[in-house]
Every structure is written in structure tokens, then in C-alpha cells.
């Protein structure tokens, strides 16, 4: 699996800043550095999990990739069928055409469907835009899509308020699938659902991925969910990727102190497992004024003077032939510890 991977999307030095305005003349006094230099490669057919606490920039990253918010810097090279293009540089018209390949499923199933459209109406707009079929064919297509997400055909004529949260989320997924995309960004797609429904949606996502060879960018704060769905996981902190590894590898050889703390904080639904918790002090610092050096140093128990002044780079490590990237000055030291255990 590791060799000759087909890179679908290559994100380089992506930055999304939002200006902070103040005063009568709305002068820009600073920037919220929501995404602050992210480099990632997304492979075809994989699920890349992006995890982090609220405010770490994971949603902004997802939205920037679809240009739902405009990134300030950086490039995203996407391998289209007719060659690789930088989607950040595409002009309006061109981008509209390629948008078909990139779809998103939003967190809140209640606000992502227009209440005044029937379900068919919600599907019809994107289909019409990309000129797929005539009305009859579109109806057939929608019926098929609904069947894919285990909903009966006649739901097409109903309005969103008639559905439960789980059903709406499945409609959202079906809508994202309607234009036959390659990549779907799932932005906290299961977070708003009850546990029993969450399992239904997760299984559905996995099934669809196999059937349609989809690539998922799975954004979530829930590590147990991401462990279940993702092939690789990127951990974000204050707009930066701090650790990136294959799923099993990340749990077996956790290198970054932040990932360790995050993992230890998760309550496990297994009464036989008691674990040591690594308490984290304080809150995530403000992204307007991030700490100097390593962004995690004020909360890190291993922090030294070097961490305060020097920004660590994302560096590769190799465990049992698998690549593992971490941005910590003391990665080597932690790597030795995890292998010796």
C-alpha cells in the first residue's frame, strides 16, 4: 500500500487568514491564522482523518480546499482526468467545472438543507447546473441515490422538516454523491447524531467508499470515530499539522506530546481499561496571537527554551517501514521511547 500511491491532491503551504478589523475606519489590526501553513498529500481512495480541538482550523482547511473560503496563500494541486491543476489558481468559470469532483457534507443536518425545497429540489439544482440528464432521468437518478442511502423513493417529494437528523444527514450524503464526485469532505458529518444513528451513517460511508472508490477527507474531533474510518490521520493544532501517520501507527507510536495528551483525555467505553491521563493545562491559545516557537509549548510538559524560540518543522520518521511525520524538536527522543517499550 505504501508504494506507488496515486496522489489525488497535493496541498502545499496552505494559509487561510481572516483579518481582524477594528475602529471607525475598520482598519485591519491583525489576522486570525486559522490555517497556517499546511502541507498534505491526499491519496486516491483513502480516508484521511483530520482531528483537533475546536478552533484548530480543521473546518477552515476543509472549506479552503473547496474554496468556500478563499485561502491567502499556498497551492492545492489536484489530479484531474486531464492533468494536474492548481485549484487555487483556477478562474471562476473553470473552477465551477471542476467543482463537480469536490463535494462536502456539513456538520449540521438541520441547516444544510433548504427548508423551502423538496428533497428533489435540493438534488435538482446541482444536477441541472452540471447538465446531467433531463427531468425524467434526474428523477431516476435521485431515486437511485436515495436507495443507496437506504431511503425510499417517495421521500423525494417531501420537505426537510419531515425528516429526522439521521435521515437528513443521509440525504446530505446522497446529495454530495449526486454529481459523482471523487473527493468528499466530511466536516463533522456524524457529530450531531445520536450514537445509534452515528453507527448507521459511518457504515454507510464505508460502504459507499468501496462501491464508488471515493476519497474522504474526514474532519472530526472524535478520535474513536476517526480510528474506525480513517486510513491516515493528521492531527492539527492552531492551524498547523503536528502529527501525520497511518491510523494504527499513530496509536501504536504516538510521538507528539499533544497527540498523547489528546488520546489520554478520551473516555473509553470499556470498563476494564484504566489508563493514565496526561492532564493538559489551560486552553488553546488564540490564533490571532499564537505563541512564539512551537505553538504547543505553553501547554507542553516537555517544553524547553528551544521550543519557545524555534518553530519545529514537520519531519519524517520511519516505524516498521511506515512513514510517520511529526513536528516536535524532540521527536527522536520520543521515537526511541516508543520503540523500546
Amino acid at each position, binding site marked *: 500500500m505504501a508504494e506507488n500511491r496515486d496522489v489525488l491532491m497535493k496541498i502545499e503551504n496552505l494559509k487561510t487568514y481572516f483579518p481582524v478589523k477594528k475602529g471607525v475606519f475598520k482598519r485591519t489590526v491583525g489576522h486570525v491564522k486559522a490555517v497556517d501553513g499546511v502541507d498534505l498529500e491526499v491519496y486516491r481512495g483513502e480516508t484521511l482523518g483530520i482531528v483537533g480541538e*475546536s478552533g484548530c482550523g480543521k473546518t477552515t482547511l476543509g472549506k479552503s480546499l473547496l474554496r468556500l473560503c478563499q485561502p491567502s496563500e499556498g497551492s492545492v494541486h489536484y489530479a484531474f482526468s486531464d492533468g494536474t491543476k492548481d485549484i487555487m489558481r483556477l478562474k471562476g468559470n473553470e473552477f465551477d467545472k471542476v467543482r463537480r469532483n469536490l463535494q462536502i457534507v456539513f456538520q449540521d443536518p438541520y441547516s444544510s438543507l433548504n427548508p423551502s425545497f423538496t428533497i428533489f429540489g435540493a438534488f435538482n439544482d446541482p444536477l441541472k447546473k452540471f447538465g446531467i440528464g433531463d427531468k425524467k432521468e434526474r428523477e431516476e437518478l435521485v431515486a437511485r441515490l436515495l436507495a443507496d442511502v437506504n431511503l425510499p423513493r417517495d421521500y423525494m417529494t417531501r420537505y426537510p422538516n419531515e425528516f429526522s437528523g439521521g435521515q437528513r444527514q443521509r440525504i446530505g450524503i446522497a446529495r454530495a454523491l449526486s454529481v459523482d464526485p471523487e473527493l468528499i469532505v466530511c466536516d463533522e458529518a456524524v457529530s450531531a447524531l445520536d450514537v445509534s444513528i452515528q453507527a448507521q451513517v459511518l457504515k454507510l460511508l464505508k460502504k459507499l467508499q468501496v462501491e464508488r472508490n471515493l476519497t474522504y477527507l474526514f474532519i472530526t474531533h472524535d478520535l474513536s470515530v476517526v*480510528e474506525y474510518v480513517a486510513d491516515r490521520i493528521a492531527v492539527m493544532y492552531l492551524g498547523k499539522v503536528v502529527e501525520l501517520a497511518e491510523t494504527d501507527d499513530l496509536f501504536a507510536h504516538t510521538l507528539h506530546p499533544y497527540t498523547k495528551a489528546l488520546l489520554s483525555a478520551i473516555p473509553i*467505553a470499556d470498563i476494564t481499561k484504566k489508563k493514565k491521563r496526561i492532564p493538559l493545562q*489551560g486552553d488553546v491559545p488564540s490564533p490571532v496571537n499564537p505563541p512564539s516557537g512551537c505553538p504547543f509549548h505553553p501547554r507542553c510538559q516537555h517544553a524547553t527554551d528551544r521550543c519557545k524560540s524555534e518553530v519545529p518543522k514537520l519531519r519524517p520518521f520511519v516505524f516498521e517501514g511506515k512513514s510517520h511525520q511529526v513536528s516536535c524538536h524532540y521527536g527522536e527522543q520520543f521515537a526511541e521511547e516508543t520503540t523500546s517499550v
Partner: protein
Amino acid sequence: MGCVMQPIRHRWAEMAFNESNDTILEVKDLCVNFYTNQRCNKALRNISFSMKRGKTLCIVGESGCGKSVTANSIMQLLPELSRIESGSITYHGEGQSIRIDSLKRNGRKMRRLRGQEIAMIFQDPMTALNPVFSVGFQIDEMLQSHLPLSRKEATERSIQLLKEMGVPLPEQRVHEYPHQYSGGMRQRAMIAMAMACAPKILIADEPTTALDVTIQAQIFELMLDLKHEKQMAILLITHDMGVVAEMADDVAVMYMGNIVESGSAEQVMASPAHPYTKALLESIPVLGKGKNQKLEPIRGTTPDPYDRPKGCQFAPRCDYATDGCAVQMPSETIVEDGHMVRCFHHKELLHG
């Protein structure tokens, strides 16, 4: 291991004597109905449990199962068009037992109890705190309404409380407003307010659902410390089985207004006797089990509360259901010391 859940049917007579000193709150056969649009939602149906000093009772269930209604009935915070139909809620304070359900909602006695003896923290600290008053003012208000304190003394106490809850720079923070606090801080401020009068019971209604896991861990750590220090009883309402495994001494699983299973955390989590508990545990991904763990979603959805199944509420979604389940609600059965279940098929579940 204390067995808190005692499905009580035969002890009405003894009740007044407060059989064990450890029990601080007893709920018996509680029924609560909501009336809207000429329809009646039986939100709680015959639920019974008791809480003990220094123990945490977790109520777990999906949205709409009646967890919050249970908490609100104990605090008498139910909405206007609802009432306690039958059953009792008894608070065993020092030297006296008070029937909470018979008190007037906003009567003097209830108001004295609320906050001083039983305190509550809510899910969303931003909506629970008043944005136009400083945090300090809101804690002072709480202190002054229950204790004979001057304003200056109350402020000092507030600072002390914020300090105990781990809010940095409490002298400065006490004068700040809720929007200046972060989510975790706000929840700490809420807990400070709840702890102001050293209550005997703390009711926490999904206290960490809106928070990040690292902050959640901090808040739980704080709650555990308080429990040990003050021998406080905690009623923790959650939908997260992980939280239950982490925090609970005792567990009650609710479904559609019934407690379907209750017992100690080990009993319920390790050997669930009710199909719903089992299904719930199988439907969540557990950290550390990897990509190939089997998830079994519960089929169907929760029924409409106005159009309930006749017999066992879980029967339409249950793999074990037989004809008998659709006719009659199973009664409370004790399968083991302190382990109660409402299911006809508990033997199949427990013994394979």
C-alpha cells in the same frame, strides 16, 4: 460496591425512616407528563432510583429519552405545561426528609433547597450564564440569597471559589463577563456557582458535551476531586458511554422514558442484561480497537413519543423481541444484587 438502584415496590412503609444513612435522594415510581396541543407525552414512566452520598450515578440514553426531564423534575424546573403525575422524590437531608414533589415550584422551601442542597450545572454554559452581569456578580447573587453575607464577603468567597475551580487570576476574572471566558472557563464558573453553598447533590446535565476532550478531562478531574473532598452525590447525565465508563459508580440506562437497566457500572457495562444497553455498546466505535472493529447500528429510529409501541418500548428495534414483548411492558426484575433490568429475555442475554 454500593448498589444504588433498588427497584422499590414494597417499601412504602419504611420509606419515612430513611433506611440507610447513605441514601440522599430517592425517586420512586415517578411519572411526568407533558401536555401540548391537546396531546399528552408521557415523558417519564415509573422510574425509580436512589442516589448515595459520595457516589456518581450516570443516567445514559439517546436524545429524547427523558434524561433531562428526570434532572429537571428533581430541581422542580419543569416547564409550565407539565406535571408530576404520580410517584415521589424524597430528599434525605440532615435530620429530615423532604418530599420534593409536593413542594410548590417556586415556593420558599423549594427555593431554599435549590442551590443550597441540590445544585445543577447545565450543558451550555453560555446560555446558562447571564451575559449582562459579571461572573462574580452572578456567584455573589447565589451566595447572598442563601447565606447571610455582605457584598464584600460574598465577593471574597467568589474569588475563593473561582480559585478552587482552577480559574487563573481569579481576582481579575471575577469582574469579567461571560463572553470574556473560554468554554472550559465558563463551565468552571458554572461549577463554582453550583458549589457556592456546598450542596449535597450536584446534578450535571451533559456538562461537557459542548467542550473539547482535553477540557472535558479537566472538568471531570475537578468533579471527581469535589466528590471525594465533599462527599457529594453526583447525578451525571450523558449520552456518551465512554464518560459512563470513566465516571460512574452506578448507571441507569433510559429509553423512551423508562429506566430499562440499572446497576453498578461494572454490572451494566460488562454484562448488559438489556438488549438496548447491549446494542448501544455495540454501536459505538471504541478507541484502541482499530479499523476492523464491528459496529452494529441499532435498526430503525426511536418511536414518536405520541405514538408509542404498546408493550416494551424497544421491541420494534430489538433482535430478541417475541410476541409477548409487543403486548406488555416487562416489569422490573433483579438479576443480581443491585442489577435491575426490564426485559423478558434477560436470561438469554446474560447466559448466551
